[in-house]
Structures are given as C-alpha cells and as structure tokens.
C-alpha cells in the first residue's frame, strides 16, 4: 500500500507542546514477523514522554519519529510469517516502542493480542498495558494470595487502577495512595479498602497503623525513588516489593541505587517486573547478549484472555479518564506529564 498518513512526530527533544508536529509521512510497510495496524485508538503512556523529551531511553531512534508505544486497531497488512493475523481487531505494542501516534503503526506480531468485538471502544484500547503489567507483577512475580495486603502507589493512574482491581479480584486487601481528592475517590470506587492522599498524610505511618505495624505483603510501585525507602519500611517479613517503574526519577534505573543491606535486613523480595513479550529466538538473543528475560507470547495470550474474561463478567473495568481527538495528542500527553489526568487517556482516531 502506498500513500501517506498523518503522524505526530518528535523533531527535536523538548516539551510535547513545543516539539510535536503533525506531519504527512509515508505509510510504513511491515517486515517479517510484523504487522501493520490501522489505528482506531491510541492509549497514551507516561513512557511515551521519554521519546518526546529525550529522557531515559535504551535506544534513541533517529529524529524525526513518532512516539507512541501502544495502539488499538485492525491489522491491515502482514509481513512474512504473520499472514494469518490479517483483519484481526487487536491491541499491540509498537515496534521499538514508538511509531504509535499515527494512523498506521508497525507492530511485532508477538506483542499483539486479539481484542474481541464485544469489548467496545474506548475500553478496548485501555485493557492491554496496565492490566498485563499488573497481572505480571501481582500474579506471576508476587504470587499474591487471598487475604494478603497490597500497597498500590499512584493507584489512580493506568497501572495503579488496574492493580487495585486485579488485587481485589484475587481476594487481597488493598491500600492505595493517590495525590488528590478526585483520585482518592476513584481508588475507593475501584474497591480499595484504604486510600491515602499522600499529599496530606505520611503514607508509611498510615500503612503501618492499618496493618498492625506488620506492614504489607506486596508493594506495587511504579514511582520508584520518591517512595521506595518509606515503602520498604512498611513491607512485611517475606514481603514482595514489585519494582515496576521509576516515574519519580527515571535515571535511577541505571544508577547503583539498590543497597543489598536494605533488602537483606528487610527479609524481602525485590521483584523486577518488565512487560515485554518476545518470541523464543528473540528471547534467546536477549538472554545471551544482555542476560535479560522477556515474557513469552503464550504468557501474554493467557493474561489477555484472563483480562478479557474479567472485563466481560464485569469484575474489572477499563479506567478511561479522558478521550481526545487525534489533533489533541500534544495537549493530552502534556496533561499526563503534569499529573493532571485520572485513569487512562485514549486518543480516538477518526476513520
């Protein structure tokens, strides 16, 4: 397919409102193992910001390029080996975790999952990343048990709001932190048993009081540095501390930040959690070259099917705080950067 499409692109690194430009660019072609998704909706992620501001990135694509790590839409072209996915309604991670702020996006087939027609938009676009991440953390890594207590930070955000719901589904008691009255209300509505406005209260003191000074069994943390020491103080013996991200200071991910003594004296598990799917060849390559472990496509399929089932039965719901038009992407990601959003922001792309 030749022709051009609209895409928001980063031309130089800076603030979203300053540097994102709406361009007309050629429609990309999928390579082997890839597909092209005609985007119907684009869920925004805080990580997209790094590809706009030039912050902490493992790989820096050549400028200009389109940010956007997650899309929802219909597969309209297939590279070699993924022909059977043509026409599928999907949610997907974009190739290289960028290229999604566009009318068409290239996505590896391995990190793309079927989204049944029974899930309407905008919800269909909101069920992938945060729910997979929360599931991978709470179920696979933490093995959360019925009756245990979980502390969820940034609980009104995308992955936090997913974590509250999955933890409640698993029968856990949830203590949530959030930074405004509106966010606190959302956490309560999602089922959190205790909600702490961290701008008004010392969250660690409240958590200890709420757990009889024992601490929580699992901490769900994508904030990092700003909450880590205080959170470890309120993690119980044998507790699992999920390191999901470092939103408060992305740089610590590559700094000697974790002190073994602290982990040992806490008698706790510091669990790394990364949401990235790879096929066996890529997994082997990544393991051999870097020592890292990516999740298998089978695990992703299993998680997606659990999530869709829970959604369909009304056990969980998509937390869409804002829907915006394609033209409003820079303003919408800017609002996310200012922590002014609640739940997920979904960009609806006109047909």
């Amino acid at each position, binding site marked *: 397919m030749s022709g051009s499409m609209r895409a928001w692109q980063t031309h130089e690194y800076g603030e979203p409102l300053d540097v994102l430009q709406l361009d007309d660019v050629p429609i990309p072609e999928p390579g082997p193992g890839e597909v092209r998704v005609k985007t119907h909706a684009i869920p925004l992620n805080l990580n997209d910001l790094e590809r706009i501001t030039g912050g902490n990135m493992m790989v820096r694509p050549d400028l200009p390029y389109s940010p956007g790590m997650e899309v929802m839409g219909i597969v309209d072209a297939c590279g070699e080996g993924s022909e059977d996915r043509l026409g599928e309604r999907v949610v997907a991670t974009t190739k290289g975790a960028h290229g999604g702020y566009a009318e068409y996006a290239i996505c590896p087939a391995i990190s793309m999952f079927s989204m049944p027609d029974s899930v309407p938009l905008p919800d269909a676009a909101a069920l992938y990343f945060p729910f997979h991440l929360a599931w991978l953390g709470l179920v696979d890594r933490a*093995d959360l048990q019925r009756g245990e207590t979980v502390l969820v930070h940034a609980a009104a955000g995308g992955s936090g709001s997913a974590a509250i719901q999955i933890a409640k589904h698993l029968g856990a008691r949830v203590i949530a932190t959030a930074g405004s009255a509106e966010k606190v209300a959302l956490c309560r509505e999602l089922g959190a048993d205790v909600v702490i406005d961290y701008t008004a209260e010392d969250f660690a003191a409240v958590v200890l009081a709420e757990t009889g000074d024992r601490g929580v069994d699992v901490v769900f943390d994508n904030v990092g540095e700003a909450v880590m020491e205080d959170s470890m103080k309120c993690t119980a013996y*044998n507790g699992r501390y999920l*390191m999901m991200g470092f939103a408060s200071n992305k740089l610590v991910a590559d700094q*000697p930040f974790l002190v073994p003594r602290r982990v040992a004296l806490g*008698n706790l598990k510091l669990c790394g959690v990364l949401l990235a799917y790879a096929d066996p060849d890529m997994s082997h390559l990544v393991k051999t070259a*870097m020592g890292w472990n990516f999740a298998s496509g089978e695990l992703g399929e299993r998680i997606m099917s659990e999530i869709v089932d829970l959604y369909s039965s009304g056990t969980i719901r998509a937390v869409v705080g804002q829907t915006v038009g394609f033209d409003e992407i820079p303003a919408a990601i800017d609002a996310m950067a200012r922590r002014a959003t609640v739940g997920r922001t979904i960009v609806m792309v006109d047909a």
Partner: protein
Amino acid sequence: MRAWRVHEYGAPADVLTLDDVEIPTPGDGELLIRVQAITLNFNDLDGIHGRYKTVRTPMPYIPGMEVMGTVDACGPGAEAWAGQRVVAIPSGAFGGYAEFVTAPTAMTFAMPESIPLPAAAGILMPFHLGWLALYERGGLQDGETLLVHAGAGGAGSAAIQLGVHAGARVIATAGSPQKLAVCRDLGADVVINYREVDWVAAVLAATGGRGVDVAFDAIGGSTTTETFKCMAFNGRHLIVGFASGIEAEDEGIVPRPVVFGNFSLVGVCHAYVDDPIGFKAMTGFNFPAHADGVEMHTELCGLIEAGELRPMIGQEVVFTELPAALAAMERRETVGRTVVRI
C-alpha cells in the same frame, strides 16, 4: 578466661592475640555459655580486618559469631535455659573466640545430645540460612534448578543438600577439583570450576539457555551482578552473604538488569528476635521470630539425626590453632566448615 582478641585491624595471624580476660556477665534475656566449640565464619574476617563500616566493635574485641556449648549462667528472664546444650549467635555477633560468651536467648537454640560434636557445631549458620533462603524466601520447588555458589563452603554445602532434599536440580560452582568432588558427593548434578571456565556461559549451557530458577549467592560483588545473567524468568536470586568482602553489602546495585530480568532479588538475614513487630517499629527491618526459628531448628535437627542432611565439617582444630585456621579459610583452602574445639 582465655580469649582471642583483636587489638588492631589486620590479617588474623598478625592481629589476634590470646589474652586473659574477665568472664562476661549475662544481662536481661541473655545467657552465659561455656563454649565447647567455635565455628568460624567469613564474617569474622570482615570484623578482624575492620571492613564493617556501620557496626564498629569496641577495641580490643573478641571476634566469633557462632558457638556451641552449655548454658552456665542465666540473666534475668532466661532462667529456663540453665544447663542446656545449645548453639548460639553471641550478643552483637561477636565474642565467640573465648571460653565463655554471652548470647541473647532469641539467638540461641537447643542442641539435642543425639547430635554429637563436631556436627552439632556446624548446623546453626549454614542450615538455618539455607532453609530460610531456599524454602521460605525462595520457595524452591521440586524439579526447579538451583545454582549454588561456593558449593564446597559451609553455607554452600548446606544449600546443595537442602536443594537436593527439595527435589531441585543443583548446579554448584567451586574453585578446585577437590571442592568440585565435594559438591558432587553432596548431590550436585552439575559442577563448575569458576577458576577455569566462564561459569555464566556454563550455567546457561546447563539450562538450555534458560537460566536457573533460584540462585544461592553468599559471595556478593561482581559474582552477584554476573549471576543476574544466569537467572530465569520469574527466578529468585538469594542474597545470603558477602564472602567476597562485606563492603559489597553497601555497594549499590543498578536496578535495570533486575527489572529487565523479570526476576527477584531476595534479601535473607537470619538474626532472630523475640518480637518482630516491635523490632520493625524500632528499626524498619524485618527479622524472623525466634519461635519460628525453633520450629525450623527442630525440623532440621530431625533431618540431621535421620542422616538426610549432614553438616560438613572439613577441619577440626584446637583453640590455640584458631588464627592459623582462619588464615587458611581466608586463602580459600578450607572445605566445609572449620570447628575449633575447646
């Protein structure tokens, strides 16, 4: 009483002197133990060299963090322990290189007469640590793969046995053919001489490139960060000690390989307290409850009596030979544990 004391930091053979000192008095909740056997630990060396940055012992001081003996006198509240045969971590985790030492009851465990010396002196540190690490924190499962570093050492030899006992496939590293033979004898399925081969590559090769489910790492430093590459998806890397030097305990680790590795970095510290919740309120740390330790200890002693597990005592020396025995341990010449008989 006689005691080996450190007057200035340095190598054990240079700085340990045999002194005549006062017998200590047990305080509240403490016991005075008449020492029959002292078991040497790598952490003793950290103290003697002055490598502990945070907890400085008063000079001159008596090292020694693990003893076996009988209770000679009891402090207030500890009277029930009178006359018992015990193993203990002394107060402050030092003071054990002596004929008498005080220990908190929270760090003391009864040792049945049915387990003779020297085995009785070889149990506390390695088997408690291994049990807490592999079973409680690590959740090691039947059929999983376990990597044990320094498999012929005190902690490592216990970990291999506990791994085999759990039904795990065990890969052990060690630094000499003699030590590799020891690991095999204990039940390790794969043994790797880390001095001769690229052990990371060897571990990956032995697991079909997948890595191990659980790693028992009592070494620290670069061994720890290299081990990250050997961890499987959902793996548990147990940080149980720092035989490479205690400095590693305070050297920060970069989070990315842990996050991207999708595995857990697991802290294991087995200093028992009577009141874990009160201790947490005071320090922010989680220590296991002595009562839980007693339960585990009873189970461990049962397995040892049944011959399922055996403390590996590689060297037995007498009290006057203590500095030389410690120097041999520092040169990595010892196998299993070194027990000093009084």
